[in-house]
């Protein structure tokens, strides 16, 4: 997916991950690179006064900051949360919250999506997994 960032519409590529419940996520190093390479790049000030926890795949809870930015996607313009995570600042480890089958949310990544020709059109699709 190609994103155009900020008023100057800086183009950057992004991955869509259907397993995440987060919005738009950047690493702190990526934000630094964007600021360094595009002087006009401005996300404004962060809106949290202390870092919050963001759980990553290995169960660690890393520190996150939030910024609010306008985003335009195919002509549609909305304010979104841009979450900047600091992978080196670990605030804790996750203890399991999964108790019911509805809580299970497997990650379906690029290696899976590229394997099928299914078009999602924003709709969820049922996946059947059975013995090979």
């Amino acid at each position, binding site marked *: 997916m190609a994103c155009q960032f900020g008023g100057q519409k800086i183009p950057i590529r992004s991955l869509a*991950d259907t*397993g*995440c*419940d*987060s*919005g738009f*996520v950047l690493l702190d190093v990526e934000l630094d690179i964007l600021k360094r390479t595009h002087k006009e790049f401005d996300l404004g*000030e*962060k*809106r*949290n*006064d*202390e870092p*919050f*926890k*963001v*759980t*990553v*795949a290995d169960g*660690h*809870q890393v520190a*996150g900051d*939030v910024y*609010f930015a306008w985003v335009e996607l195919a002509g549609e313009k909305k*304010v*979104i*949360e841009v*979450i900047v*995570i600091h992978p*080196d*600042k*670990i*605030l*804790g*480890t*996750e*203890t399991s*919250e999964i108790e019911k089958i509805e809580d299970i*949310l497997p*990650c379906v990544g690029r290696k899976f999506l590229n394997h099928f020709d299914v078009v999602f059109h924003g709709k969820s699709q049922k996946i059947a997994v059975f013995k090979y």
Partner: protein
Amino acid sequence: MFGEYSKEETYKLLKKATGQKIDAYERLELDHAPRTNKELMLELLDSLVRRDVLPSTTEERITNLELKVKRIDLLEAEIRELKDKMNGKEVQKPHLTAADIVYEENKMELERKHFGKIVAIDAESGKIVGIGRDMFEAYKNASKKSKKTKFAFRKVGYQSICKLR
């Protein structure tokens, strides 16, 4: 042994009485000196489990099994920390912030009424100032009630705001 005292205890008494030091015992003492609070806690729990120094008043309240469970918890935490160190990740010691305290105070009511929503916390005034489906909505609601431009955010009923997996 000197009466009911061990060699080390006898040496300590002699040192206290005469002021004389014996290098071999000093080294031994250094080797055995606990280095961290965690090690001290483990040693104490060990001795409590062995009932070496269990005070009679505590003995009535704490069972041997509970102590063993506490010791296992401590050891597990230490293993997790060591694993993180091996992976090159240093875990910061969990500490409660002012916002954590405000959240904990309101936790029961929030979880009953707003489970899964995001709350904006003004830690200075000690109040929950905004609630919303996402951080932007919570921030907008908080801005109406507070003059501050930054807030602490928590997801009601969850340990973290979001998951990247």
